[in-house]
Structures are given as C-alpha cells and as structure tokens.
C-alpha cells in the first residue's frame, strides 16, 4: 500500500480499526503517521473547546417579547417574575405628546453631536476631558424609550414588539460605538458610527411619533 492509497482510505479508518495492510503502512510511513497524528490532535483539541460566549442582552429581550406576545407566559402566585431588563413601561402619562418626543429625539441627537465634536479632531490638542463623554443620564434615556413604546402601544400595538426589539438594537449600536470612541477619541470611523447610531435612534423616535398619531 502506498501513501496515496492510505490517505484515500483515511476518512473511513481514522477512528476505527485498520486492516493489516493499513496498519503496516502507518507504522512504516512517517509522513502518513504525522498526518494522522495532526488530525487526531485537531479532533482532540476541538473536544476541549468550551462554550465561551454569552449572547447579547437583546436575545433575551426578543424572547421575552415573543413569549408575552404569544401568550406563553403567565405569572403564578409566589413565583419569580421577569426582572426588568432595559425598557420598563413608565406609568407616567404622555401629556404633551409629539412635541416632547421630538424634543427628546433632538436632545439626544444634540448631546451626541456635542459630545462628538468635544472629542476633538486629529489636528487639535486633546481637551482636558477627552475620553470622558458627556453623561447622558441613563434614567432620562430609558424614560424616553419607555414613552416611545407607550405611544406605539396605544396606537399600533401590533408593532410594539418590533419597536421594542429595534430600540434594543439601536441602543446596542450606541453603546458599542461610544465605548470604542472612549477608547480612541481620534478614531473618525468610530465617531461616524456613533453619529449614525444616534441618527437611527432619532429615526426610530420619529417613526414611532408618526404611529402615535401626533
């Protein structure tokens, strides 16, 4: 048996018994022996690969929305409830309607743009506070998100899950881009992504506004 014949048969014999001819070739041929050893090494190493990564929080958010939408969940007495993650529908009534939403969207965009430019350009000296973004109070953003979802729920309940999921998506985009810009304020590409992420959130607010009939 030569190497070509042995290697052609290899897929079927690498994990199972070999006949005498195959065994003899393996013992006598260093090249094929090395090959088999390498392939076994790869297979063994693969067994040691542990599950290493968690999915992003949006996955659970999507599952939760779908479970509620499909009516698959109902709370029992004394049981664990869903822990609020991300958006919580605020009991606060939507008083001034579209104008407040529009202000929120513009504020968000304005803060984003102001921070964007405060990071400086390639040619300018870093500002003393470079790397420290303008803090957008988490509570005010969450409340605005909640208001948007309330508005969508009132007018177009069938679209609520879509808006909720996409709010998570665009918030994730903003978080990712902001983190990268914090690490490297001179990364123009990352800053561009951040601005686009804010624009997309503004778009979502605007379209939700239209759905709310304001």
């Amino acid at each position, binding site marked *: 048996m030569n190497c070509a014949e042995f290697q052609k048969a290899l897929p*079927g014999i690498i994990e199972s018994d070999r006949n005498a001819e195959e065994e003899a070739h393996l013992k006598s041929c260093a090249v094929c022996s090395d090959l088999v050893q390498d392939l076994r090494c790869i297979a063994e190493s693969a067994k040691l690969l542990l599950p290493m990564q968690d999915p992003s929080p949006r996955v659970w958010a999507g599952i939760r929305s779908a479970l509620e939408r499909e009516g698959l969940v109902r709370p029992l007495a004394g049981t664990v409830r869903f822990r609020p993650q991300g958006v919580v529908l605020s009991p606060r009534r939507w008083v001034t309607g579209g104008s407040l939403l529009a202000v929120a969207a513009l504020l968000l965009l304005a803060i984003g743009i102001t921070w964007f430019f405060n990071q400086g350009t390639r040619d300018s000296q870093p500002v003393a506070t470079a790397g420290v973004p303008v803090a957008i109070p988490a509570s005010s953003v969450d409340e605005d998100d909640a208001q948007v979802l309330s508005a969508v729920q009132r007018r177009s309940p069938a679209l609520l899950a879509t808006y909720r999921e996409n709010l998570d998506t665009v918030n994730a985009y903003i978080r990712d881009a902001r983190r990268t810009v914090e690490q490297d304020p001179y990364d123009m590409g990352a800053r561009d992504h951040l601005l686009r992420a804010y624009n997309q959130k503004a778009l979502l607010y605007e379209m939700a506004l239209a759905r709310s009939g304001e």
Partner: protein
Amino acid sequence: MRPEKGDLAQARKLAGTGLSEAEAIDRAKQGDAGSFEVLYSLHKRRVYSLCLRMTGNTTEAEDLTQEAFLQLYRKIGTFRGESAFSTWLHRLAVNVVLMQLRKKGLNEVSLEASMDPPQEDGPKKDFGARDRVLTGAIDRVNLERAIESLPPGYRVIFVLHDVEGYEHNEIAEMMGCSIGNSKSQLHKARMKLRDLLRANRAEKAARR
C-alpha cells in the same frame, strides 16, 4: 452526544431564585415567566456558542439562539424526560441552525457538492519530507479562528462531530446524507484546518 461541558454543579441551581433545573422545567410547563428566564440563563451560553460556531456570524447566531429558545418554550409541554433536558435543547438548536442554513442556500451545506478546488479532493500529492507542526497543544484562539474560516459545509460537520460530540450516524440523520459522506466531509474539514493552522504557525514564525 457527550454531556454538557462546564460547571454542572453551578448550572443546577441558579442563585437568587433557588430553582433547580427540574423545578424550572415543571414551572415553565405551567407558563411561569421566571422559570423561562432560569432555563435561559442555564443554557444560553452553550446554545449560543453552538450557533456561533456553526454559522460563524454573531448576528445570525443571536437570531438562531432566540429562535431555538422560543421553539423550546413552545414545545416544553411535550418534554417527558426521556433524555436529559440539555440534550433535547441541544438537538433542537442544531435543527434550528441546519434549517436556517438550508434556507440560505442548500449548496452551502450540501454534502454532495465539493466546496474545494479539485486538487484538495484527492489524496495529498506531496509525500515528501516530514512536517510535524501540530504536535502539542493547539492554541484555542487559533483553532476557533480557523473553524470560523472553514467553508460552511465543513464547519457544520466539524462542529457537530468534533466539538459537540455527535456521532456520524446522528449527523447523517440530521443532515440527510450517508454516514460515509459525513466521514468524508469531516476528514476534509480536518485537513483544511490542518492547512490553516500550519499557515498560521508559519506566519508567526516568519514574524519573529
């Protein structure tokens, strides 16, 4: 299929709720919201890692993870405990991924079509000098990257067999192919990985 890896003891009780997996399953069958979350926390990492390794794409893997858990929750009432819950969930997740890959284009996972240039299909032509470059431990990161670089059809088979521990007869049944075909594709996947890992080592050596 081999038992789930990781810290099983820790996985059995979720701090804060005190629910065991078995209790969570029973409650989830009755629609208890918190129990769904317990089951998700226990198994999300394994399911997501499987989806990610099989697709090589984080967005797709997240979507498929979501779909796998939703299918689980819809069908949880039919779980009778004939197999381990994790085994049942794992098989469900694999089927979700395979269905998605088929929807994207059967050729991508077809085991009949050759994904490689013709010379890679036959036996190695170079029977010259010895080339033992993969002895010792293979770096996990390099292996993960190499797996990600595999053509989709090879990647699926390799992940199912070598990483997740499915047997060829199980893979053949899931993918609708023959056992011989499954073995052949696995061999090609390993050969391709060998080439990728060797190239990676050579590149690193050249940089020194």
